[in-house]
């Protein structure tokens, strides 16, 4: 049995921790994360409140767990939306080739250079800040990323003999893209999705921190961070906890993505 890379194992452990907390929050949190208790504000860690309470006396652990759920949902939606559109575009570009491919990839280059934050601010300016707009903005930046990966991988698969054989059997380019190309580029797409999951978590935190994402009372690590910022001297732990959560989640998905790449693309490992 081949030994799994360390980054994969650490990444998987961190990801399991975060996803586990998020999943658990769906059925159970120690307290209702919205429940305020002004007299119990800035409470120290106790048997009742494991990480204490915030400036409104809300249970910190419960908030972090609910925020994990929010973060995972936003990242999942954004990666799914951006990933499917981008992958479809990449497959299309690769299947058609010629000027269509050039055009799609030039547009992807422009999209790639476009800062997500700017796009989110534009969306917020036009439609008002909301979690949906944050998801749309993060999805949007994912499209060119996946288009590139899908197109580069698909171009390789198109040269395989089984694709020639499928063409010889009269299959259309669309059918070949669906039945033969897509399954064979799944590995690099999944690796990219894992890495983009990390990027999306960070982006959601940043947008919510700026007030462009989750709106109160929706829980979010980014918003917890911005609320805690004004209380840095009074209660620094309120900023540290969500910060640690963001680092854990981003690092976890990043390492997992790296590790998956090492496992699925042995060529890259050997080159190191």
């Amino acid at each position, binding site marked *: 049995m081949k030994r799994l890379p360390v980054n994969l194992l650490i990444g998987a452990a961190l990801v399991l921790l975060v996803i586990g907390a998020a999943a658990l929050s769906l059925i159970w949190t120690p307290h209702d994360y919205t429940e305020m208790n002004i007299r119990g504000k800035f409470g120290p860690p106790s048997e009742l409140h494991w990480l204490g309470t915030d400036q409104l006396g809300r249970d910190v652990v419960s908030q972090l767990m609910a925020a994990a759920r929010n973060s995972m949902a936003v990242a999942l939606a954004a990666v799914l939306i951006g990933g499917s559109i981008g992958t479809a575009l990449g497959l299309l570009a690769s299947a058609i080739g010629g000027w269509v491919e050039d055009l799609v990839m030039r547009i992807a280059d422009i999209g790639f250079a476009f800062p997500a934050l700017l796009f989110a601010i534009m969306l917020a300016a036009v439609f008002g800040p909301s979690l949906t707009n944050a998801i749309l903005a993060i999805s949007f930046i994912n499209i060119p990323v996946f288009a590139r990966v899908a197109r580069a991988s698909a171009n390789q698969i198109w040269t*395989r003999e089984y694709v020639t054989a*499928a063409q010889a059997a*009269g299959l259309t380019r669309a059918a070949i893209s669906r039945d033969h190309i897509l399954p*064979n580029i799944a590995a690099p797409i999944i690796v990219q999705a894992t890495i983009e999951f990390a990027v999306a978590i960070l982006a959601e935190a940043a947008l919510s921190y700026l007030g462009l994402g989750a709106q109160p009372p929706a829980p979010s690590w980014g918003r917890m961070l911005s609320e805690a910022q004004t209380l840095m001297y009074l209660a620094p732990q309120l900023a540290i906890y969500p910060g640690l959560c963001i680092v854990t989640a981003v690092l976890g998905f990043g390492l997992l993505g790296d590790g998956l790449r090492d496992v699925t693309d042995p060529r890259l490992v050997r080159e190191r």
Partner: protein
Amino acid sequence: MFDLTNLSVHFGPATALREASLTIRPGDRLGIVGESGSGKSMLALCLMGMAPEAATLSGTLTIDGRDMADATERDWQALRARRVAMIFQEPMAALNPLSRVGDTVMDPLRLHLGLSKQAARARALDLFAEVGIPDPEARLRQFPHELSGGQRQRVLIALALACDPDLLIADEPTTALDANVALRITDLLVRLSAERNMALLFISHDLAAVARATSDIAVMYGGDIVERGPTRAVLDSPAHPYTRGLLGARPSATALPRDAKGKRARLPTIPGTVPGMADLPKGCRFAGRCPVELPRCASERPAVTKPGPDRSAICHVPSKEALA
């Protein structure tokens, strides 16, 4: 019926195929032999409408009387599988590693014949049985890596037969297989061709296999069809110096030496190597390597000569007799 007239394929200034003319009628079994790079696969791909995008084609190809010059990709897609199908050299590489072989075979059945999933499955089972795959029920669900090389080639033959093509092109179908398996695949192709009155274009390095499988033969060198005729006649009394070179180092027409792995030897070596496509002589392509070359050979294209009934060769010095 497939009819090629003066079909040429150019890659910029280089010529991969020069004025090839061939007619393939129902039930014909035509062999194509020649060293690597002589244009055998290019000829096959032209018949499939699958020449590389970089290639420029000239000359005419008609299929059942229809001129394919203005055929679109969509037209070709409709012809492939139903009129002309192809199997390849590497049966492993020619099967999608992530697809069950049954699904691969059912694809064209559903696409071209519009069969339901059950009907396509039933037909795939029949095809597997026809090409001699044991326990077809179980095989349908297997992945390529679970099958042996010979079984994989049989799956690809089943795939090629799926829509009852008029012509089956086999591009070096046995090169990657063990000797015994190669023999059985060759015989299978011959049997299928006879049973279905399906034309077979059998491309091979292996003269023994071609002798066994075909009734007619075309010898290719440097993009030219240098000799044509009935297989027996050509192999028994080759008219073109290149054909003689191919046969020269061989003990007999039916027994080629095998290497340590039991694979059939490639074509016996002719002194020198095939020049690059762009460096081929303008006249006879074989000039420079030919043992009986004349001064005009390199610059002057030889005319077609008729060394025997139904035979042709392009050479300034055709037939053995001319040498004597």
